[in-house]
C-alpha cells in the first residue's frame, strides 16, 4: 500500500509503505462545518447540526484509514488522502465535493493547495480548481509546473528547481495558469549562478523562498512586517529579496501563517517575524501577560510587540533543538528533536490543542494522551486547525 507525502524541506514526493504501520493522526481546531467531527469518526456529519462544537480544543485521533499525508484545511473543509490513494472530503458539502473530484482526478494526486475559498487539486491528469459549492474548473497547465502554494492573488510553483508565479483569471471560458519565472537571487545584470529553490511557503500577502545553501528570500507585501526586511509597508516587493538578518545562517525549514513567518535553522534555532496580534510569534502581546499557571512555556524576556518586522531568534533552553515548524493563519507550532510539540497564538477554535480557547503569547507544551507511547513524527498547521502525526 503506497501513498505520497510532502516533506517540508524539499519537493521530492516520497512514496512510502504504510501497510505495516499504524500511524496515528491527531487533529484539533475549527470544526464549524463538522469537518473534524467527520474526520475523527469517519462519517458524514450533518453540517447544520447545532449541537456540534465549533471547535475541538484537544488533539483528537483521526480514524485510522485516513493516511497521514498533510491534511489540507480550508475554513469549511478538510481534504485528505485515503489509504487507497483517493481523496476524501469532510465538512461543508463533503458528499458533493467527493463525488465530483472522483470523476476528475484519475491519477495520483501530486498537490493539494488551499487558496481562499477554493481547493486546487493537481494530478498527473491536470489541475482542477474546486469551489466549496462542489463545482470545479479544469485548468490548463501547459508549463507543467507543480503548484505548492497560493497567496490571496497568485499561485506559486516549482519546475526543475526553478520558481514560477501565476495569476488565475477565472472570468475567462477556459482558464489557464500562465506562469512567469520568479527567481530569487542576485541583482539582475550580474552574472552569478541561479539559485535552486528548495522550498516555498505562502501567506495571504507574502511568499518565502528557501534556496540551497540555506538562504531565505521573501516577496510580497510587508503590511505586518512579514517579509522580514525590517519595515512595515504596503509597497509591493515583487522580486524576492534576501532576508539580510538571516544571512550566514543555514535555514532548513520554513513556514508561513497568514501574516507571519517562521524559519528553523540547522543549529536547531527558530526565528519568527510578522504579526503578533495573538501571540503567534511566541512573543508577549501585552506588558502584563496573564498566563495559565499550569502552562509549560518557552518564555521570552522581551517587551511586548504587535509587529516584528525582522526575524527574531527565540531564546530556547540549550537542549532544545527545533526540527520542524508549521503555521496556521494566526498560530504556530514547533516540533523539537525530543519529539515535543509547542504551540502559540490564536486559539479561539481550540487550534492550539491545549484543552481551552484562550490564546497564548508564548510557545506552550502540548500534552496529548498516548503520545508518551509514541513519538511525534510531524506537525502540520493550516488555517484554524492543527494536526500531528505520531508513530506508534
Amino acid at each position, binding site marked *: 500500500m503506497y501513498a505520497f507525502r510532502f516533506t517540508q524541506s524539499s519537493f521530492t514526493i516520497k512514496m512510502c509503505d504504510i501497510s505495516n504501520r499504524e500511524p496515528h493522526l491527531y487533529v484539533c481546531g475549527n470544526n464549524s*462545518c463538522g469537518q473534524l467531527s467527520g474526520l475523527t469518526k469517519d462519517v458524514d456529519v450533518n453540517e447544520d447540526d*447545532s449541537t456540534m462544537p465549533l471547535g475541538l480544543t484537544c488533539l483528537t485521533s483521526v480514524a485510522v484509514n485516513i493516511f497521514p499525508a498533510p491534511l489540507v484545511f480550508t475554513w469549511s473543509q478538510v481534504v485528505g488522502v485515503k489509504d487507497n490513494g483517493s481523496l476524501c472530503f469532510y465538512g*461543508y*458539502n463533503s458528499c458533493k465535493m467527493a463525488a465530483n473530484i472522483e470523476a476528475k482526478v484519475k491519477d495520483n494526486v501530486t498537490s493539494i493547495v488551499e487558496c481562499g*475559498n477554493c481547493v486546487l487539486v493537481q494530478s498527473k491528469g491536470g489541475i482542477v480548481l474546486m469551489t466549496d459549492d462542489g463545482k470545479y474548473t479544469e485548468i490548463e497547465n501547459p508549463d507543467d509546473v507543480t503548484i505548492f502554494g497560493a497567496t*490571496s*492573488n497568485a499561485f506559486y510553483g516549482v519546475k526543475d528547481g526553478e520558481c514560477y508565479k501565476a495569476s488565475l483569471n477565472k472570468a475567462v471560458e477556459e482558464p489557464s495558469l500562465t506562469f512567469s519565472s520568479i527567481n530569487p537571487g542576485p541583482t539582475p545584470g550580474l552574472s552569478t549562478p541561479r539559485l535552486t529553490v528548495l522550498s516555498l511557503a505562502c501567506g495571504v500577502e507574502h511568499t518565502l523562498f528557501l534556496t540551497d545553501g540555506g538562504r531565505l528570500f521573501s516577496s510580497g507585501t510587508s503590511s505586518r512586517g512579514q517579509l522580514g526586511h525590517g519595515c512595515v509597508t504596503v509597497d509591493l516587493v515583487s522580486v524576492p529579496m534576501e532576508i539580510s538578518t538571516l544571512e550566514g545562517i543555514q535555514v532548513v525549514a520554513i513556514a508561513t501563517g497568514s501574516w507571519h513567518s517562521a524559519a528553523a535553522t540547522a543549529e536547531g534555532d527558530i526565528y519568527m517575524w510578522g504579526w503578533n496580534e495573538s501571540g503567534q510569534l511566541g512573543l508577549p502581546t501585552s506588558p502584563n501577560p496573564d498566563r495559565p499557571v499550569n502552562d509549560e512555556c518557552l518564555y521570552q524576556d522581551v517587551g511586548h510587540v504587535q509587529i516584528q518586522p525582522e526575524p527574531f531568534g527565540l531564546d530556547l533552553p540549550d537542549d532544545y533543538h527545533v526540527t520542524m515548524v508549521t503555521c496556521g493563519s494566526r498560530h504556530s507550532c514547533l516540533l523539537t528533536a525530543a519529539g515535543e510539540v509547542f504551540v502559540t497564538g490564536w486559539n*479561539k477554535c481550540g487550534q492550539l490543542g491545549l484543552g481551552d480557547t484562550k490564546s497564548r503569547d508564548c510557545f506552550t507544551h502540548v500534552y496529548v494522551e498516548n503520545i508518551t507511547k509514541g513519538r511525534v513524527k510531524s506537525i502540520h498547521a493550516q488555517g484554524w486547525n492543527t494536526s500531528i502525526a505520531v508513530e506508534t
Partner: protein
Amino acid sequence: MDSSTNKSDGNNTHKKLMESFIAALDTHTISKHVDSDFVGEAVLSKINACVGYFKAHKFGTCTELCGFMLDIVWEKLNTGHWKDVIISWRHAYTIISVCKASSEYCQLIEEEGDVSFQMVMKSCDMGLLMGAPVCDNILASLSSFLQHVYQCKVQGQSDEKNASSKLAFECRKRKKGEFMEDKNEEQVTDINNDTHETDLKKYKRNTRSEGLESRMDPEKIIQRIACPSMEHFMTHFRSSETPVIITGAMDGWPAMSSRKWSLDHIKAKAGYRTVPIELGSKYTDDSWSQKLMTVREFIETHIEGKSDTATDDVPIGYLAQHQLFEQIPELEKDILTPDYCYLGDSDDVDINAWFGPEGTVSPLHYDPKHNFLSQVIGRKYIRVYPYSETDKLYPHESTLLKNTSRVDVDHCDTVKFPDFHRAKYRECILERGEMLYMPPKVWHFVKSLSVSFSVSFWWE
C-alpha cells in the same frame, strides 16, 4: 398592572423589534449584498444559518456562530489594501453584526448567557467600524435604538415603552440632526466643572505652551473675523483661498452652551462605545499604531491618566479623524454644520471628531477638501503653509504619504531640511469657540495645547 407584567410586556416589544431588524435580512437580501462568487457558498450558508438560529430563538447558538463568522470575515478584511477589500466581505460583516447584536440583546433581556449591554454595543460598533452599510444603514438604526434604551436605563427612566413606540418598525434613512427627536429631552447638567478644560481668555498664555507662543510673530498670525456673511466669506476668503479664523459662529452649538461638552458629558453619552485610537506621537513614526477601546477607557487612560498601569509609559493616545457623529447621533445633535459649507458644489459634508490630551500632533500635511476646524474643548496651535511653498516642505515620496511632509515642525532637522525655514507660513492658537477655515491643499501642522476636542467639516 404590576411591574413584572410591565417588564415582560416591554421585553416582548423589544424582542419583536429585534425580530423586525432581522426580518430585513432575508435570504434574497443577503445574497444581494454578499456575492457567493467571491465569498464562497459556505460563508453564505452560515450567514443564513445565523439568521435561522435567531428566528428559531436559539440566541446562544446564534451569538456563538455569529462570533465565529465575524472572525472568518475579519481575516478577509485584513488581507491586502483596505480600499481593495471586496465589498461583499464588508457587507457580510455588517449583516452578521446586526444578527449578533440583536441576538445578544435578546439574551440580555431574557437574562440568559453572560451578556452585558457593553457587549451589545461593542457588536454594533465593530460592525459600524469594519462593515459597509446595507439596507438603508440598518446597523446604524439598530445601534441608535439600543443606545437610546441604554441611555434611558442609565438615566433611571422607565421609558423603554416610549422609546420603542417612537421608533418605527421600518428601517428609515437617518436624516442629519433629526433622528429620534425626543420631545422630552433630558437636560444634562454638568456634574462638575471639568477641571481639565482650561478656560482661557483670548490672550492669556498658558505657561506650558510658552515655547511655541514666544516664537509667534504678530505679523504671521492668521486673521480673525467675527461671523462674516456668506457673501463676505465667499468673496474674501473662499475665492481667494485664504485661511481665516471665524469667531462667534459656534455660539449656537448646544455643545458650547445648553449641553456643554465636558469629559463627563462625553463619558455619559458615549462612554461604552468602541472607537479607534491612534497610539504614538505621530502617524509618520514607526511606533505608531491603532487600537480599539471604549471612549471611557480612552478618557481614563490617555486623558485623565487614571489607568491601573500608572507607572508604565502610557503612549500618547488620540481619537483622530473618526466619524464619531455617524456612530453616536446623540452627540451629532450638539453640533451644527456651518452654513458656509454649503457654498460648495456638493451637499456632502464629512464630519470628523478629533479628541485627545495635551500634546497630540498632526504632522504637517494637506487635505484635498475645504475644512472648518472647530474647537469645542481646549485650544490648539496651528501653522499653515500655502501649497506654493511645497518645494520647501520636503513631502514624502511614497504614494501613501505624498501629502505629508517629512519635516517635524516641532523639531526641524535643519541639516536634512535646509530650505524649510525659508518657507512662508501663518500660525495661530485656536481657542474654544473658534473655527479655522483652511482651503484645499493648504499645508497644516496641528498640536493640542490642552485637552482638546475639535470637530472638522470637510466639504467641496
